[in-house]
């Protein structure tokens, strides 16, 4: 049973054992965040290239901090997000970074498939920090860790995801992960952002355009961020979105009393989520951030901490 993987391109390509292994391995790193001295020498001498072709503060800082706390150095490349801007190609940029000999590259890009594209052409491991609308695997992992910690287990929950599903890599990665554990997933949002094909992504996925129906009996609610500007698309007006899809305390009451609320951040307070819900006892947004750090530390440790050609099987050897 091989738990090792070279790249982390998406949840879809991970086995269930690998997902559980990463979640379990995140736990010691959760505790680590409480140490007075948050600095290990484990990855001392290793370098992680952070190649962010899309603007992102929180994910980038999370990865940079994870690397630093493990003792590694980070190489930061940040580019303007617009795909319309011409200039050095993605391939040329990552090859330039690779020439500086990092031990791995964390990549965020606006094109779906960018992580796979880069992984096929570089010699170093690639960690997908978000590729277009395709996947954001570390987000799904930290969401799963949050769910497991808060609810005691990961299996068989009623999960509702609200928002622009079609363009959301967070939605896709969560669908791939949670369906593995028998969760029933209800997608809710404007119909034009929730085509029928989304139901074919995984077993146990259904759609509804009515938020009341989507929240009935929900155990886990994931609210996606609304992007008010979209290329190629007229958007729903904010007022319309709030009226139809905002997660308010009243709507939240339709869910299970023990339901928890997740948001990948950054939140548009007052748009997709009512501030009272965002700050309320059911909200997990703060833990999500801490868990994100733990998950990314566990991931960097796995990818960088040992030689790339180590075989599978976890054991502890002799001293």
């Amino acid at each position, binding site marked *: 049973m091989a738990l090792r993987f070279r790249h982390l391109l998406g949840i879809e390509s991970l086995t269930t054992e690998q997902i559980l292994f990463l979640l379990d391995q995140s736990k010691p790193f959760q505790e680590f965040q409480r140490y007075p001295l948050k600095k290990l020498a484990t990855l001392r001498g290793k370098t992680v290239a952070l190649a962010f072709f899309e603007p992102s503060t929180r994910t980038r800082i999370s990865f940079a901090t994870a690397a630093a706390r493990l003792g590694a150095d980070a190489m930061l490349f940040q580019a303007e997000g617009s795909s319309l801007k011409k200039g050095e190609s993605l*391939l040329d940029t990552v090859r330039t970074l690779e020439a500086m000999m990092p031990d791995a590259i964390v990549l965020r*890009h606006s094109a*779906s498939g960018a992580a796979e594209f880069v992984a096929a052409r570089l010699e170093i491991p690639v960690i997908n920090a978000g590729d277009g609308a395709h996947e954001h695997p570390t987000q799904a992992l930290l969401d799963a860790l949050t769910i497991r910690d808060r609810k005691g287990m990961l299996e068989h929950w009623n999960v509702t995801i609200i928002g622009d599903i079609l363009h959301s890599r967070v939605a896709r990665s969560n669908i791939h992960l949670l369906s593995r554990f028998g969760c029933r997933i209800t997608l809710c949002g404007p119909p034009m952002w929730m085509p029928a094909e989304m139901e074919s992504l995984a077993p146990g996925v259904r759609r509804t355009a009515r938020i009341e129906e989507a929240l009935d009996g929900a155990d886990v609610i994931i609210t996606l961020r609304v992007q008010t500007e979209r290329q190629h698309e007229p958007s729903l007006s904010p007022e319309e979105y709030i009226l139809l899809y905002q997660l308010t305390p009243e709507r939240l009451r339709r869910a299970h009393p023990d339901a928890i609320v997740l948001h990948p951040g950054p939140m548009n307070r007052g748009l997709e989520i009512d501030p009272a819900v965002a700050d309320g006892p059911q909200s997990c947004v703060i833990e999500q951030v801490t868990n994100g750090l733990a998950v990314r530390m566990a991931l960097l440790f796995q990818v960088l901490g040992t030689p790339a050609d180590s075989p599978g099987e976890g054991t502890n050897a002799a001293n």
Partner: protein
Amino acid sequence: MLLIKNGRMVDPASGADAVADVLIEGDRIARIGAPGEIRLGDGGAEILDASGWIVAPGFIDLHCHLREPGQEISETIETGTRAAVRGGFTAVCAMPNTQPVNDNASVTRSIVERAASARARVWPIGAASAGSKGESLAEIGAMREAGIVAVSDDGRPIASARLLRQVMEQCRALDLPVIEHCEDASLFAGGVMREGARSARLGLRGVPAESESICAGRDVEIAALTGARYHVAHLSARRTLEHVREAKQRGLPVTCEVTSHHFTLTDDDVTYDARFKMNPPLGSHDDREAILEGLADGTVDAIATDHAPHHPASKEVEFDRAPFGVIGFETAVGLAVDELFHTKRITLTRLIELFTTGPARVLGLRENRSIAAGALADLTLFSLDHPWTFRAEESASRSRNSPFDGRKFRGAPMATIVAGRVVGRRPLAI
């Protein structure tokens, strides 16, 4: 003189299907006889032994991009036609989206001149609108004098119904077919593949089939209004085919072509590899099924390649950023034999029609494609069972963007004859 011996001659125009010898003198077919019947003097004829091969009239590709003038980094008339004759094509129709666009007689003439020494015949298609911008009429009349065989703004649709009407009126008067790349720009909007379960999984922006079919539906109405000959380029969807079928039933001069990649692949085959990115995108399984039905029942008039070379560096980018298009000259016949003939979806005669009499009818050629004494000596010789593997690296094209790299085929073009000369031969090793 050229004597082709022992080939199985299949001629849709006359219905002939028999093993025969064909004698060619100059650029015309001189005689056809039973095997061994034609005796030559010492006049030094070249002998071509076509045992086990099919001898068909010369194949025509209604739709290709030769990239010259202006984009020679991807292809030239010379390299493109070398790939074309390797693929069995004796004549190719070159779309006008070059740089500059072929929208006036001087560009047309320069293409015709450059093509004079090419191995295959190159028949230019002229732009419908100036610069193919969809604003004003191109100089269609002047281009006709210079040698265009059809009119198209391929790469884009003619978005304005009013302009399309003007183009069609003009072309009707000049007896030219109007070839349309059917697409609705607002539905297409940044899409890169067919909208469906596969695009949802890959997270790539999808285009619904309706983008093509609503444009075709509209165009058919305007064709009925004007009486012009209207041809749907690279048809990819069931609904579009239904529009064509209905138009034919109404007796309208409406025709259509499908590409070899559209009858072979579907959107399920798409990965993040840009060699699977083209416009129109690969359709659904149901669309493919409709296309196969249409190829068999005659609704589809021709198979075209839409050979669209892009130099390797331009395709080696993220899927979103890659240009649309795949090369196709060298694989079209192999795909037709494998996917259509060996699967028994169409007969051999039908297959040959789709490459010969079908295209000839679409273009309204004065001389049909046929094998008969006195006919033009353009012939395509192909095998139904020669095994080979296509390697893009070895293509005669300047570009390598094929989704069929490494694919094994059973059946291949073996020799191509244009104006009585053998211009392409498959080395037996390949």
